[in-house]
């Protein structure tokens, strides 16, 4: 039964993760993120971490994803991103190859040192920790094998406010306060008119047509600085070349 739950939740979470990466519309990506988070919450329940599973659903699916959707709707950036066009030539292929290679390397290391991954071999780990042996904070280890959910919550509460973790808890409170203040400061509308955007943008590799016409107008404007114009022209040629190469 545990295996069935594991594979079901694994399929849900992996499908959701693939959806986040491959779906073009950000709204759809956010909804697949919810699927992944639910799958991971099922894994948490399977691993007897009941409180964390509940917090996962409430905080992640209830708060963070809603925040994502809120910003997507606020900014109106819910139009599809073209996955086909590659802004930096070959960057995606290299990225996929590198990530796959690192995964293969990690799997290889995991297979080679499978006895040493957790530091303690599994049979010893079960025995030693449940007898209060090598566990880091053996005060809070549940003694019986099947944990009841309310016992899990009590254990977490006791451990969180014990002298071992209470300082970290206070620091997270400070962090959340800083987060709130930072969000308010960052999104505040500045008074008065904003300066116009600088039109000497660094040459973007993928300029579309309207932007390249902008570039031409700026070129005709500063005819006095001949060297600059020449430099810009060479940059424009480069960008045009990359555009042709992209097509």
């Amino acid at each position, binding site marked *: 039964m545990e295996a069935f739950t594991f594979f079901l939740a694994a399929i849900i979470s992996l499908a959701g993760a693939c959806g986040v990466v491959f779906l073009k519309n950000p709204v759809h990506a956010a909804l697949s993120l919810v699927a992944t988070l639910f799958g991971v919450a099922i894994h948490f329940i399977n691993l007897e971490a009941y409180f964390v599973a509940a917090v996962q659903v409430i905080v992640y699916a209830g708060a963070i994803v809603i925040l994502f959707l809120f910003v997507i709707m606020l900014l109106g950036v819910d139009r599809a991103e073209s996955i086909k066009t590659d802004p930096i030539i070959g960057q995606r292929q290299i990225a996929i190859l590198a990530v796959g290679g690192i995964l293969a390397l990690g799997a290889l290391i995991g297979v080679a040192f499978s006895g040493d991954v957790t530091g303690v071999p599994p049979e010893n780990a079960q025995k030693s920790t449940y007898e209060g042996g090598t566990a880091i904070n053996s005060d809070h280890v549940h003694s019986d094998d099947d944990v009841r959910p309310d016992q899990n919550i009590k254990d977490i509460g006791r451990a969180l406010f014990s002298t071992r973790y209470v300082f970290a808890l206070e620091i*997270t409170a400070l962090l959340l306060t800083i987060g709130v203040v930072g969000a308010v400061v960052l999104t505040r509308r500045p008074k008065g008119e904003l300066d116009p955007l600088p039109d000497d943008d660094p040459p973007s590799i993928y300029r579309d047509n309207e932007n390249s016409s902008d570039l031409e107008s700026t070129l005709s404007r500063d005819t006095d600085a001949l060297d600059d114009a020449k430099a810009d022209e060479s940059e424009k040629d480069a960008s045009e070349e990359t555009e042709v190469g992209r097509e």
Partner: protein
Amino acid sequence: MILGLSIGTEYYLALSALLFTIGAGGLLVRRNPLVMFMCIELMLNAANLAFISFGKEMGDLGGQLSVLFVLVVAAAEVVIGLAIVVAVMRRRPKASVDEVSVLRG
């Protein structure tokens, strides 16, 4: 049969590695800042899964407590990150991180 299989820690670790890989690949491949944040959340979730499975393996509650702290940090990170995205997008309504490679304007 596959349903009678006992699921050890290594299964969860393999799943965690897969989730982290998908998140890292998405972070490198996508250009929309919001989707990149979602990929960061995927990677954090993979780390959380590894934390909890190791905590179960060792019989230690520290794994679950670490996950709680990671949750708080992830929430703060998303709040600040989305505030920056909103502030930048207000000036340059272009949904690509390559357009804001210079932190100015």
